[in-house]
């Protein structure tokens, strides 16, 4: 096993290349610009396509066009840039073509800042562009995981003709860790029966047509239901998560991405103090691991959801648990990264407090938080 030290942004760029990325379109924005910088050299070197578009709108529509031809294509951006791409994403979803997008998330809303954040969970998982569609959203917590999921993204996008979004907190883009890179895959032009590559490229010169326009509401309704049918297959087959110390856990911390790995340090520290606590870290935040969380309910006294926002994944956890076990919340929004000590204090509170299923975890947290950082 050869492990090399990689910066997160460079690592996902190289991983995409090795997964057979044939075309990249993007626009610079901190903290993901290194992806463009890296690919601007690497893609031409391999005779592949790299375009720094005139804007995020340009980039995502170039992705849309390339996706219709069935090549492996992606773009990367950071929060404000992703907002600009939402219209294009909706068209891609409506046209049912595979595309991959990475969001190296920063503090927001608005221009915000360039610090690591998880404020785009709702946008990625529940929101996105207009219309009734869902997308696969993967949330790595380390650079190795980001690399592995980058490769998986292309496979999933093609398998389900869907958008796959990788959400990285800015810190994963900027930090360095040892990585074992995947092998270089050949670029393969797959003979998709839907791809529009020109009639002379299609069997028997057949005419193909890709669109997101369904003027007849019945046809659009059918399309929406087709997307949901496909999503149900995704929800049943593509859930991924990692768990730690759950065997005898009475309390469970749930966090994704950087918040999840910081929580791992806190859980270990709590274990050292004799608290029976484990960690559940969703890797697919969409499809969310509802069943896996639900299975923890009968043997768990309390859950603690930790996020770098004001409680976005919290809503999904609440849906999974349906008020049967108390949930507490700890968040640091706006680009603040929680430290293990902060989460350890929450675990200690969780294990000693009288918990109630009737309390609103976000409001309880807000009261505690307001005492420390006045909302202003």
């Amino acid at each position: 096993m050869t492990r090399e030290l990689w910066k997160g942004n460079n690592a996902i760029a190289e991983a995409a290349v090795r997964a057979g990325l044939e075309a990249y379109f993007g626009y610079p924005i901190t903290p993901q610009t290194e992806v463009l910088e890296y690919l601007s050299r690497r893609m031409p070197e391999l005779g592949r396509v790299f375009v720094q578009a005139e804007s995020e709108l340009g980039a995502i529509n170039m992705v849309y066009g390339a996706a219709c031809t069935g090549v492996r294509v992606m773009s990367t951006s950071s929060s404000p840039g992703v907002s600009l791409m939402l219209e294009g994403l909706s068209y891609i979803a409506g046209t049912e073509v595979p595309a991959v997008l990475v969001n190296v998330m920063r503090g927001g809303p608005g221009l915000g800042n360039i610090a690591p954040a998880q404020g785009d969970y709702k946008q990625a998982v529940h929101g996105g562009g207009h219309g009734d569609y869902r997308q696969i959203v993967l949330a790595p917590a380390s650079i190795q995981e980001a690399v592995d999921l980058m490769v998986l993204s292309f496979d999933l996008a093609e398998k389900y003709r869907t958008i796959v979004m990788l959400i990285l907190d800015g810190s994963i883009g900027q930090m360095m860790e040892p990585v074992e890179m995947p092998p270089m895959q050949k670029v393969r032009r797959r003979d998709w029966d839907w791809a529009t590559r020109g009639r002379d490229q299609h069997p028997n010169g057949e005419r193909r047509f890709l669109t997101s326009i369904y003027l007849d509401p019945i046809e659009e309704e059918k399309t929406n239901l087709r997307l949901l049918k496909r999503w149900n297959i995704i929800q049943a087959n593509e859930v991924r998560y990692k768990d730690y110390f759950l065997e005898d856990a009475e309390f469970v911390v749930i966090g994704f991405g950087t918040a999840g790995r910081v929580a791992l340090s806190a859980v270990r520290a709590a274990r050292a103090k004799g608290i029976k606590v484990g960690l559940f870290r969703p890797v697919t935040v969409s499809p969310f691991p509802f069943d896996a969380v639900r299975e923890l309910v009968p043997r768990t006294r309390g859950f603690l959801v930790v996020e770098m926002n004001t409680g976005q994944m919290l809503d999904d956890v609440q849906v999974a648990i349906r008020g049967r076990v108390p949930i507490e919340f700890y968040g640091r929004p706006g680009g603040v990264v929680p430290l293990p000590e902060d989460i350890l204090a929450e675990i200690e509170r969780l294990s000693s407090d009288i918990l109630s299923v009737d309390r609103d975890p976000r409001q309880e947290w807000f009261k505690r938080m307001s005492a420390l950082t006045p909302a202003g």
Partner: protein
Amino acid sequence: MQKEVIVAGFGGQGVLFAGQVLTYAALHQGLEVTWIPSYGPEMRGGTANCTVVIADEEIGSPLVKKPTAVIALNLPSLNKYEKLVQPGGVLIVNQSMVDRIPERSDVTLVLIPANDIADELGSSKMLNMVVVGALLAHFPVVTLDSVEKALSEHLPAKHQHLLSLNGEALRRGYDFASQHAAVPA
């Protein structure tokens, strides 16, 4: 086992590379390691720091409140991080840029005139390797050997002619810190 190092100073002092050298060395030794810079709208002359976490198991948080070791290359860094070093940890202070004596007596303290040593070597840029060497004298998690190997493999091509000088800077720092350390009673 988990150890953490924060390297802090002005932009341009080689703070980030000092951390990377430790990171590469840990990788060479087959350990788990993370390197994370403070990144922001920063510029030369502003403050810079990075955190290196080294462990023998999957690393949780790449950021820590209380590191095992701190290298403070200037006064603002000393003021910020002195109080945070874990008791029993290591504090390396660049005496050339700091005009006060640290107060901690429960850590291994090395006051090293790193700028002066680097200047003696003929290049002020060697400052960061002098302090990394000083740390290694009291931080046995990564060895001087693996740091030198890391340097030879990862010093940028344009600086490869400075390899032996970097090695000398490491050893000067190491020797100084071996002889001039205040160890807690």
